[in-house]
């Protein structure tokens, strides 16, 4: 078996952790603003699941960093609160604004269906820690898929207005979905070593699941769009900076603050 470069592994753990962290933060923004109190709670629950995943990935990244430098790596808080936009490695999809409820549902639907397929593979990773995190997250993700799928059906099959909004949400975010299935040299090395799943292989299954649900909901599959890429390299949309400003404010203003 190929030996794994620790620097690759560190970077990969950051990618996984950042994606969960940013989406978890996005969902937390609904708290107090969701259409119903019940949905406030639902969004917070989903957000907390994702932030839980992020904590595990980032803690692991910090451990690997420690092994690389032969000292103490950064901990989860340092990684989350003290890195800038260019150092974040999340997918562009998850940093997109919440929009209306339908946009949030579209984002969750695209992402959770992908994350489920991806983590099912990651659960058999040759890296025991990544595999364990994926196995722990899978039951949560199963619920996220169910929640998002049912909302797509409900809005698509609801009123004229709900259908229009759901369709617009799906179209507006579809350009960010290609990135989920891309890989770069680093990921290709990890795929060869059995650490990372080959996301490209998951794309046809993902596409089929998305289309099945949209058909059932009476919605159109968004036409292909030129993909927008860059999250892996730290090339983000303008939205991530605002997220980090809010998320990191306390640690930036009062370094080392605890509560």
């Amino acid at each position: 078996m190929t030996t794994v470069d620790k620097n690759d592994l560190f970077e990969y753990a950051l990618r996984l952790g950042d994606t969960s962290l940013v989406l978890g933060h996005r969902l937390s923004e609904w708290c107090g603003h969701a259409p119903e109190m019940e949905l406030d709670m639902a969004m917070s629950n989903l957000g907390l699941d994702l932030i839980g995943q992020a904590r595990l990935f980032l803690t692991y990244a910090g451990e690997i960093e420690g092994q690389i430098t032969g000292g103490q790596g950064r901990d989860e808080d340092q990684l989350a609160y003290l890195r800038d936009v260019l150092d974040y490695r999340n997918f562009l999809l998850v940093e997109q604004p919440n929009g209306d409820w339908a946009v949030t549902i579209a984002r969750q639907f695209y992402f959770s269906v992908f994350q489920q397929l991806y983590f099912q593979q990651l659960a058999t990773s040759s890296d025991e820690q990544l595999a364990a995190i994926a196995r722990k997250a899978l039951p949560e993700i199963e619920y996220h898929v169910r929640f998002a799928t049912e909302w797509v059906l409900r809005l698509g099959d609801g009123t004229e207005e709900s259908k229009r909004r759901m369709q617009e949400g799906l179209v507006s975010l579809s350009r960010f979905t290609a990135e989920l299935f891309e890989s770069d040299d680093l990921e290709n090395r990890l795929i060869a070593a059995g650490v990372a799943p080959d996301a490209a292989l998951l794309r046809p299954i993902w596409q089929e699941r998305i289309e099945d649900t949209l058909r059932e909901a009476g919605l159109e599959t968004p036409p292909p769009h030129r993909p927008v890429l860059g999250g892996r390299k730290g090339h983000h949309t303008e939205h991530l900076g605002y997220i980090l400003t809010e998320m990191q404010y306390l640690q930036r203003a009062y370094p080392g603050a605890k509560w």
Partner: protein
Amino acid sequence: MKQEWPLWEVFIRSKNGLAHRHAGSVHAADAQMALENARDLYTRRQEGVSLWVVPSAQIVASDPSEAEALFEPAKDKIYRHPTFYDIPSNVKYI
């Protein structure tokens, strides 16, 4: 104008073998949403292993003003409590 979603009553079974108990209520537009909202509101701290939701409108309730007629007559019939039996000491699980 905001229209309120219908109300649903939530019942939780805390563990297998026990009965479902009333836990509270949720608003939801349909049965599936009611189940999910109940999951998100009432089982966050491992409260249960099974959920029921029932449209609140389907619950038939007794009239509080008839409470006397309905429940008072049982008051002086303490012999209905199984407390007048001697339990043999070698009987377990009672």
